[in-house]
């Protein structure tokens, strides 16, 4: 992550590039090697979790503003595609930009008051807003109320983004994930990324160096909300169904936090690593314990939160850095 080459660091960077190149190749080949629908579905779920958590990571990880209400943007992205289809029979794709616009509007509206709060108070405020929206949506018949909305059952054309196979979804999601990670990687190197990390470390110190804290946080929130909204749209397109719980439920928000924190919040590939571990684990528990699996998900999440908070707040990447022998990770210059 360091920008100055020192002794041994160039080698580390080469190794890192090769490592991630191999990982990218593995992601590209996965659904072809594991052609079974079950495994492809896990792959798609993994990608969606990685996209959402990477979107959350911009605000929660880099800027340290831990939102536990990001489902508000996920839901706002998920509803419009299916709503416009239900109302007018339009392609669900039309709803994607609408979801983004709504999410940006909501981000700006909640950013103003909530950024006055810090730490846990900010987190609690975001939970409250997300829950308010969930309850409101479940009582509003226009958007399907508690029952929810459905998408096209069979595709009228490619523009309905409704496929029998998991394969098109897999590569669509992979492309979006690549986009989110690319944007994050660019941010990380630029002034904006430095300002986010400075704000996370100490707002007071950041201010004293001329960092416009309020605007910087707002930019991070808007960007984070945009990508989370896209994640929600992708979910709706793939599932063809959305209800208040799967769109605005707290579990949606909590998953983003856990996936990012498990791998390493505020690190480019943290959410990816987190999703790589959590999603297979979650699928396994759901499969073994059948329909009662969703309750078990809560227990799993709770357990992971306790473990991360107690033993490794930096996530698995931090653990790796602490434990791995120097020659494995290529040796830091220091």
């Amino acid at each position, binding site marked *: 992550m*360091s920008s*100055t080459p020192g002794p041994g660091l160039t080698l580390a960077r080469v190794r890192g590039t090769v490592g991630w190149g191999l990982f990218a190749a593995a992601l590209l080949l996965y659904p072809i090697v594991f052609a079974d629908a079950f495994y492809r579905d896990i792959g798609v779920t993994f990608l969606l979790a990685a996209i959402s958590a990477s979107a959350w990571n911009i605000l929660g990880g880099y800027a340290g503003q831990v939102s536990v209400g990001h489902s508000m943007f996920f839901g706002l992205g998920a509803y419009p595609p299916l709503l416009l289809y239900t109302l007018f029979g339009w392609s669900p794709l039309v709803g994607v930009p609408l979801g983004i616009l709504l999410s940006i509007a909501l981000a700006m509206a909640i950013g103003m008051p909530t950024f006055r709060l810090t730490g846990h108070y900010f987190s609690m405020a975001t939970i409250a807003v997300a829950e308010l929206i969930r309850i409101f949506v479940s009582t509003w018949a226009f958007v399907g109320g508690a029952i929810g909305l459905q998408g096209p059952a069979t595709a009228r054309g490619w523009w309905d983004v409704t496929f029998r196979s998991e394969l098109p979804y897999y590569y669509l999601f992979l492309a979006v994930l690549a986009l989110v990670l690319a944007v994050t990687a660019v941010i990380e190197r630029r*002034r904006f990324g430095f300002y986010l990390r400075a704000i996370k*470390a*100490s707002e007071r110190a950041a201010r*004293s160096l001329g960092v416009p804290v309020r605007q910087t946080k707002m930019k991070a929130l808007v960007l984070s909300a945009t990508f989370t909204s896209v994640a929600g749209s992708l979910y709706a397109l793939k599932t063809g169904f959305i209800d208040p719980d799967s769109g605005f439920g707290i579990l949606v928000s909590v998953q983003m936090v856990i996936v990012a924190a498990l791998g390493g919040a505020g690190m480019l590939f943290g959410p990816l690593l987190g999703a790589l571990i959590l999603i297979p684990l979650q699928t396994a528990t759901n499969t073994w314990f059948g329909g009662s699996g969703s309750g078990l998900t809560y227990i799993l999440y709770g357990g992971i939160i306790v473990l991360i908070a107690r033993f490794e707040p930096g996530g698995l990447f931090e653990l790796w850095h602490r434990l791995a022998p120097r020659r494995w990770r290529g040796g830091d210059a220091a």
Partner: protein
Amino acid sequence: MLLEAKSVAKAFGNFWAVSGADLAVEEGEIIGLIGPNGAGKSTFFNCLAGETMPTSGRIAFNGQDVTRASPEARARAGIGRTFQVPTTFEDMSVLHNVMVGAFLRHPHRGDALDHARRIVALTGLRPEQRARSLGTPGRKRLEIARVLATDPRLLLLDESLAGLTPTELHEAIALVRRIHEMGVTIVIVEHIMEVIMTLTKRVLVFNQGHVIASGTPEAVVRDEAVIEAYLGRAHRRHQES
């Protein structure tokens, strides 16, 4: 006049931490603010830095009123500050810490990187080291480097040299000298008289929210009111007898 504070006062409830302090700083000066604990110098310092808003009074920087300006606006205007307890960005390297400061005047990464490298070299820190692994002297040095990267015209140092060993102290004094020679005006809050005596030409002494004396450091340490403020009346009675 680079900085002009006029009858600055700050009340916390009924308690006046600072009651009517004046300070005029010419470009190129090094001014010391001293006084016993709780004298109000830190509160006054925070009013200058924009951390606390004065209850009354006026602060002008470079001819512009900054009394109510935010810390970030002051940084943009050219007022830099350090903290009494160092607040470095722990997870970032020394170089990246300094880059945060450098980005203020150099929005592009490459320029900020070059600028930060120059500043880090000046302070003798290792650019790759994580801030977390620095000791107190290193942190204080890093804080100075970070704020220096914002190209301040006025630097407010809040006990930046406290808690150092004699060798570290001499290195730190040399660093402040070098910064001053670069043309930066400095206001320094300090307990250590060695720092005040060697660095400053003019000193303001605070006691119980008032400026009780000002002048050259040599004159101030002989001032009766100052001696009394530091050592109490008993000391004077003892001397007289």
